[in-house]
């Protein structure tokens, strides 16, 4: 006797286009993800300028100072004021000297909030100058409008 085995017919959708698209999306996000975001700080909203362009290459020994709206200075995750900033900068300078570099070789990148008092930025420059730092970069965001 012939026994007919009844097979449950599973309706399988073709997953290929979905996987293709998903991989495309992953590739897109992986390419665009910007790990240099570690340089930025949420408290700082940069002023914009039509002339600034992203630097061509990495700067030599960058010291990044974030200046928040209230004048708080953030260096390497620590908070400083203009009075205490020299302590933080000395720490950077000790690293600098261990690499046989001089203070004039370092680049002080000032990421100031657009509404911070300009005098605050001047004070920061003065403190850095006292420690023989002389190269400053005033960071602004690119305005293509």
């Amino acid at each position, binding site marked *: 006797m*012939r026994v007919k085995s009844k097979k449950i017919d599973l309706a399988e959708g073709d*997953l290929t286009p979905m*996987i293709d698209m*998903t*991989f495309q*999306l*992953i590739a897109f*996000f*992986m390419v*665009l*993800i*910007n790990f*240099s*975001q570690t340089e*930025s700080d949420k408290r700082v909203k*940069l*002023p*914009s*300028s*039509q*002339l*600034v*362009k*992203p*630097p061509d290459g990495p700067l030599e020994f960058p010291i990044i100072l974030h*200046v928040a709206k209230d004048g708080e200075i953030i260096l390497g995750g620590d908070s400083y004021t203009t009075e205490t900033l020299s302590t933080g900068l000395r720490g950077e300078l000790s690293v600098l000297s261990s690499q046989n570099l001089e203070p*004039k070789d370092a680049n002080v*990148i000032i990421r*100031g*909030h*657009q*509404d*911070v*008092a*300009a*005098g*605050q*930025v*001047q*004070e920061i*420059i*003065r403190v850095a*100058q*006292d420690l*023989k730092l*002389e*190269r*400053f*970069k*005033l*960071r*602004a*965001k*690119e305005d293509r409008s």
Partner: protein
Amino acid sequence: MRMRHQVEQEKNELNMTSMIDIVFLLLVFFVMTFKIVEMEGDFSVRMPLAGDGGATSDIADLPLKLRLRADGDGRLTSMSLNDVNLDTNFDQLRANVIEIVGSSGPVEGDDGPEIEIDTDYNLRYAYVIQAITSVSGYRNANDEVEKLIEKIKFAKPRR
């Protein structure tokens, strides 16, 4: 009785479930962490401590002086370039700089013109950047940057 032995062709199908799970997790991670980052750039200010550069004797070597004045809220009220009042007009500032510096193109090295920015303490930093933008150069009709003054320094802070 004749038994028909049906040989079913077995398909070797990979189990995609775990891979799709991981792929979706990755996708969700990238979507959640994705943030459009605005491009940033720098204005270079080379400011050795006063006295290192030596005194300038020639009056032509003296820097241009840009004075920026602010009200109590930090808004720009007026500015002047070498004592010429410009109100708050940055286009006028650029025009005056072009007039003084000339449109002969940028001078490489340390021989180019220099400007000293003297600003009220509480002036908002955005105005200073705007002023630096105006004196540093401009974009021409071909969207190329024409440089004007590359040497910028700050006066002592006014308390």
